[in-house]
């Protein structure tokens, strides 16, 4: 593998790690809320977060441009205040990966949390434990397998993100070309030997993560 291939691998790992960290925190919070609370519009919230799972990545990417582009809902005030835009940066790749990986975490973790026996949760309450203590010491440990499986799946999905990343971060060599984008470029320019190596490396990494997700996800339902 040459320097640019190593860069793509390192960038992909960096982007996927940052996105997974965000997915873990936000996804777990949303999953817990959806699993434990009853509120009006609950399924609409679930639908909104799950949408990137079924939308074409280009559509997700388009929405992200509307939000984070220089004239976007969030992008414009940030650009006006700092002169900086997240577009065409590695952070944009993190946002794209975060948005497409989030539904996997929410779906898996929600199912795991919902599968915890309600009597066990009530038992903790009747023993005098607060909702927070019960969540930390009872619910989350019992949903651990599903949460780990969701995290690993999210990482694998973030690693493989292509379409939305292309829309928001572009495909700038040495800057935003994550592995899937680098493979696309290599295949387009007929550099098959380099493409073969990157594809093989990528397949091994993704396969390893799926294997881990399967081990932890035995009890989790997607």
């Amino acid at each position, binding site marked *: 593998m040459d320097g640019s291939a190593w860069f793509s691998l390192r960038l992909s790992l960096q982007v996927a790690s940052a996105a997974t960290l965000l997915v873990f925190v936000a996804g777990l919070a949303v999953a817990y809320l959806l699993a434990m609370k009853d509120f009006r519009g609950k399924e609409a919230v679930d639908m909104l977060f799950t949408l990137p799972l079924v939308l074409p990545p280009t559509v997700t990417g388009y929405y992200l441009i509307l939000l984070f582009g220089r004239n976007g809902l969030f992008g414009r005030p940030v650009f006006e205040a700092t002169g900086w835009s997240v577009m065409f940066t590695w952070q944009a790749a993190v946002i794209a990966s975060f948005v497409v990986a989030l539904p996997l975490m929410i779906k898996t973790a929600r199912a795991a949390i919902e599968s915890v026996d309600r009597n066990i949760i009530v038992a903790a*309450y*009747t023993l005098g*434990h607060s909702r927070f203590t019960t969540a930390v010491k009872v619910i989350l440990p*019992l949903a651990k397998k599903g949460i780990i499986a969701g995290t690993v799946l999210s990482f694998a999905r973030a690693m493989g993100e292509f379409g939305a990343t292309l829309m928001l971060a572009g495909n700038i060599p040495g800057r935003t070309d994550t592995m899937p984008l680098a493979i696309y470029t290599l295949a387009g320019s007929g550099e098959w030997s380099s493409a073969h190596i990157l594809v093989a490396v990528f397949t091994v990494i993704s396969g390893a993560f799926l294997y881990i997700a399967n081990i932890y996800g035995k009890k989790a339902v997607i």
Partner: protein
Amino acid sequence: MTLQVSISKVLPGFTLDVSWEVGNELAVLFGFSGAGKSMTFRMIAGVMVPDRGLITLDNRVLFERPSGTDLSPQERSLGYVFQDLALFPHMTVMENIRFGGHGKNRKLLDGEARMLVRRFHLSGLEGRFPSQISGGQQQRVALARALMRHPKALLLDEPFSALDAPVRAEMQQLVKEVQQELSIPVVLITHDLNEACGIADRMIVYSSGRVIQAGTPAEIVRHPFAAEVEQLVSYRIGLCEQKLCPC
């Protein structure tokens, strides 16, 4: 210490409307399945809300509607042993019992939990998980865990239904001893007349969401007020012969 319950709740196809009071004694809620016994417990524990009524424990209002008091389960100072025990499967026996305790003094909690382990004959099982011990041992863990909270009343929802006869007798004896030691209201649900006769100071008979008779086991068995009670105690003859029930 008195547990006073006077509650009602209307659900589709079922109405619960009961009123009873239990002092420092062992009372049994007796009746067929689906009569509203477990629902009453859930309302006393604060995990289900009655439509109206009053629940007090030791003169403290736990629930009152229409006035609006509705303490959370955490605030009710009750020990509640569920029918399925609801032990925490990821915690060991010792951790399960300790989880019932509160306070920052770890040593004190450990000491208290160890005392309960000895008291409930669980020594040697501290490091095992609930799935690794027998049904009777699980029952004892659930009871010990409930007692770690220093409850002012104990609710036991069909705690012995899954146990073999010898273990069941042992557990009944243990509950009786606990009630006498702590001198708190202990209310137990059963639909087994044998069990009710053997353990209860007082029986409260439920039928279709109502209390149809309350009294000592002898009063209930000898003088059933209603046809439903008569039906419930109809197999007492066999128990009389075995001297299990007053006749």
